[in-house]
């Protein structure tokens, strides 16, 4: 009960703090995570707001990917991981048994660092999600596939070879296919783990444009090494360092007028 009231208090504080306040989709309070004896995340408090792009920046090993993977519990695949604290998705605790992990992941898509299309046709890649979640009608799936590929700005490039292997696509196309694969189950949130770090500048630009168009419908949390990218595409930015959050604010504030000198040093390339 006390937790609940603390929770409400926290929300109210943020309400007063921020005029552009949006509803938080994810709320993280006092999250700690260990890989064996390594304390990878320390007391993380962070919220990810609806239909915003939240960028998570920081040097390698700062825990930003770990944090992202906690949000859809993919982090539990690592052996020897232990977690404490609270992470709620739309008010529901995701770390307990209240929400089956498959249900959470059907609402939260993930795009990985390296494009990882399945060794199947382009069509089957996009249809995979709807199919495992019980959509069987072919006409419906056809629609979903076309729609998702259009949203991912890939339709025109692949419409004539939908039934060819996804491996015939370029790296950038493969990554957009992976985004289309996420969009096909109409997720509320998409988590992106350095989605453009393996891509060339042109493909990167396309993916960024894509993020700009889909953010009207979905909430996006993106981990990136590229600070310009964070500045270009995000609404809010969180700066991680050594497993802690140093600062989290509007992206313009973080990049123009950071409070913490560490943030300032990092965005100006003095370390990391």
């Amino acid at each position, binding site marked *: 009960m006390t937790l609940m009231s603390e929770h409400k208090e926290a929300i109210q504080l943020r309400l007063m703090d921020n005029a552009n306040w949006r509803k938080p989709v994810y709320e993280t309070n006092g999250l700690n995570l260990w890989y064996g004896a390594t304390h990878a995340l320390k007391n993380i408090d962070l919220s990810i707001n609806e239909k915003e792009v939240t960028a998570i920046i920081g040097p390698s090993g700062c825990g930003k990917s770990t944090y992202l993977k906690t949000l859809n519990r993919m982090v539990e*695949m690592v052996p020897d991981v232990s977690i404490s604290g609270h992470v709620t998705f739309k008010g529901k605790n995701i770390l307990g048994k209240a929400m089956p992990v498959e249900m*959470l992941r*059907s609402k939260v898509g*993930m795009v*990985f660092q390296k494009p990882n299309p399945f060794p*199947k046709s382009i069509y089957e890649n996009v249809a*995979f999600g709807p199919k*495992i979640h019980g959509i069987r009608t072919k006409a419906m799936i056809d629609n979903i596939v076309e729609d998702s590929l259009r949203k991912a700005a890939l339709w025109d490039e692949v419409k004539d070879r939908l039934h060819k292997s996804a491996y015939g696509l370029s790296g950038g196309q493969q990554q957009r296919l992976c985004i289309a694969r996420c969009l096909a189950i109409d997720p509320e949130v998409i988590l992106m783990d350095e989605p453009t770090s393996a891509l060339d500048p042109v493909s990167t630009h396309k993916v960024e444009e894509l993020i700009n168009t889909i953010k009207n419908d979905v909430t996006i949390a993106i981990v990136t090494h590229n600070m310009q990218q964070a500045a270009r595409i995000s609404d809010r930015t969180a700066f991680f360092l050594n497993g802690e959050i140093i600062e989290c604010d509007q992206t313009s504030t973080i990049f123009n007028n950071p409070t913490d000198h560490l943030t300032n040093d990092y965005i100006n390339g003095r370390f990391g």
Partner: protein
Amino acid sequence: MPIKNEIARKEIGIRELIEQKQRSRNFKEMFERAIPIFLFLIASISILTTAGIIYTLLSETIEFFKRVPMAEFFTGTVLKPLSQTPQFGVLPLIVGTVTSSLIAMAVAAPIGLMSAIYLSEYASDKVRKTVKPLLEILAGIPTIVYGFFAFTFVTPLLREIIPGLAATNILSPGIVMGVMIIPMIASLSEDAMSSVPNSMRDGALALGSTKLEVTKKIVIPAALSGIIASFVLGISRAIGETMIVTIASGSTKNFTFDITQSMQTMTAYIVEVTGGDAPAGSTIYYSLYAVAMTLFAFTLLMNLLARSISRKYREEY
């Protein structure tokens, strides 16, 4: 150390030292050039041996077909090589071989595949690292031991359950052959499944798939060519298996599909005839080669089949 000493003692530089070594280069070059020739010869041994075997098989088989018409051999359902009026129909042996192999695969394919799924997708690293070597030890048990096991343990056990089961029958060695093949199928299929990159599993899990869905829809299709290859190797092994069927299935040349009865396989026939004293040059002697040739054609066919199937189903990653 020696170079350092030399440098210290004679006070010569590294450059001079290298130049000195290069003077012996002629010999080194010759050696380098001889190496691939030598290795080629070594590699040729197995190819030449195979060619020799095929040549012998073929020439003796041709001799056999001069005495027994090919049509009679391949369509004959009676095999009586030692009778006054000998008959050389190979069909009883083919049926014996195919039946025992099918029984073996009915046992080995599902159990082997499920073991592989467990090991690759569900077992912890610790379990996998203990079980896999164990499986490979199991694969090293001599087949005569399995044959003995089939005859003295499995058959009596089966006779308790199936009343009409003959003392020598094809069912028991079939099952035991299956048990023998399980480790091979499990191990090879596990290799194929573990080599599917984890990023595929992650991609599917992140879409909300359960572990079983990931296994069924991502891992198995991606590893299918390896899994099929393991099945075909298993069948090849069953077709060529000799000891178990010789011991536990008897030598009745039955043309039947009744698995409770004794049948003879091609391999067991070869054992029987070579074990007796078939005089060289007699028809029964040449029949050995014809049967061996048929056996060889079977395994060759299996291997070709495996290739085309695995190419067809290949999902590359």
